[in-house]
């Protein structure tokens, strides 16, 4: 691992100032992704600003919004009574990810910014990876692309966003609060992540000197929700496909409103408003869910080894919506 400097500020303003002061600096959260990528030689910061002791560890309700500090640990968020009571799909998604040890370490902000698990990205012995080395090509498009995207990819990159928590946050309509030298701003999570286009190395809207300080989750008024994760083993594995679904049923079992987002299939949490609209005022039946699923994967572009994801995604949408409808 390359040598790097280290600092541990205890105040947000100082953390941002240090990121700007030290060349090639990065923030360090739980380190579960960054330290790993540094060992691999994918990330090579010259300085780490350890933000784990910043006072951004609150989880509180303000009106109809749960505000979660960026330095809360994944396990704390998943176990928090407010989260369990008001948006259990978030707990479900977090608990479906990684392992208890990793969830004890991983922070909310770091989780949002975890990088793709594309094998070619992760291993610098592959020369071609536009995300790691802009302009070098993409080894995955003609390579072993079983875990890659079927939606939202480009000729430059077909990597998926690998996380679980952000999929639930997308369906919940959450926003990200960031603080930088120019002050604070709030971005909706759906607009925070970018599609790769010709610049797959730019993954989101965050500037290097901006710090995620919290996320804001509007508490949903729904009758049921579910996070379904499909993977190669039952636990401690990334999603092949996942679905976060929220359903609000009227007493006569018609759908008042439904929202869902897909993980594992695209470079960002994949949410399709037309698919959600297709559910409004319809009965909560498998046929109706299937219609929405078809709309959600419209335009899917499978590659040599990941064609199975198209049908899997549709079935996962149907199952997640069905389970969410039965809950509550």
């Amino acid at each position: 691992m390359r040598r790097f400097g280290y600092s541990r500020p205890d105040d947000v303003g100082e953390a941002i100032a240090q990121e700007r002061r030290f060349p090639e600096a990065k923030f360090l959260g739980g380190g579960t992704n960054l330290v790993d990528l540094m060992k691999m030689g994918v990330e090579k910061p010259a300085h780490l600003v350890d933000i784990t002791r910043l006072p951004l560890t609150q989880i509180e309700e303000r009106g109809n919004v749960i505000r979660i500090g960026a330095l809360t640990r994944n396990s704390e968020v998943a176990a928090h009574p407010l989260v369990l009571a008001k948006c259990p799909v978030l707990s479900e998604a977090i608990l479906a990810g990684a392992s208890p040890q990793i969830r004890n370490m991983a922070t909310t902000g770091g989780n949002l910014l975890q990088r793709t698990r594309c094998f070619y990205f992760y291993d610098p012995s592959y020369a071609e990876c536009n995300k790691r080395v802009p302009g070098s090509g993409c080894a995955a498009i003609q390579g072993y692309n079983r875990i890659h995207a079927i939606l939202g990819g480009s000729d430059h990159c077909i990597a998926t966003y690998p996380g679980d928590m952000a999929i639930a946050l997308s369906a919940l309509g959450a926003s990200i609060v960031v603080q930088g030298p120019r002050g604070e701003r709030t971005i909706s999570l759906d607009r925070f992540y970018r599609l790769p286009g010709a610049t797959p190395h730019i993954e989101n809207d965050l500037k290097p000197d901006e710090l995620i300080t919290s996320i804001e989750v509007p508490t949903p008024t729904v009758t049921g929700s579910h996070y379904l994760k499909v993977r190669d083993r039952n636990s401690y594995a990334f999603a092949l496909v996942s679905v976060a679904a929220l359903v609000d049923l009227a007493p006569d079992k018609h759908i008042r409103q439904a929202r869902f987002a897909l993980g594992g299939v695209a470079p960002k949490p994949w949410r399709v408003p037309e698919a959600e609209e297709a559910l409004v005022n319809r009965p909560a039946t498998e046929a109706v869910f299937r219609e929405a699923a078809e709309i959600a994967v419209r335009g899917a572009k499978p590659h040599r080894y990941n064609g199975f994801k198209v049908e899997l995604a549709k079935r996962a949408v149907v199952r997640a919506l069905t389970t969410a409808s039965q809950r509550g």
Partner: protein
Amino acid sequence: MSAHEDDITRRDFVGVTVAAASLYGGAVAEAAPVSGPADTANCSLTINGHRHDLQLEPRVTLLDLMREQLHLTGTKKGCDHGQCGACTVLSDGNRVLSCLTLAITQDGRHITTIEGLASGGQLHPMQEAFIEHDGFQCGFCTSGQICSAVAMLKEVRSGMPSAVSLNTKQTMTDEDIRERMSGNLCRCGAYPNIVAAIRSVEQRG
């Protein structure tokens, strides 16, 4: 809770102020350190009750610090990438992966490793249970399994949900134990006996 677990819990929390009642509250309030790439930095951490005042390169992981510098080789390096759980230790009582933890970040923390579980010449009940139930074959994953299991029972007692318990509302079914222990792989496949060992400790309460 057995007397042993009591000891460990107490030891883990020595020095943690009441204000740090949240699991991860700050135990340290010294001047915030800054060091350059060529520097080492001061770091003081307590491992199994012994305080170590160290000069560390920031890139040293907690796992390498313990194994290479402090000769605490009970904690194992399986993958070095967060994928196996062999390096599991407790930091202020919480199970974490020492291979993805930079030692410098643990300044002021209390670390417990497999070497610190026994007390007064008595094995920890979880260690005894692993022997009694034959919860290992080659033993390489075992220190991580045992540290993980000790913290896991504490998590259950404090109400931590799992992906399984959320939906079944039941904790400590075999399925729930497996889910809660899924961060510790065993290439020898001693899983059934590991589950039995953990269950026996849980039942003895």
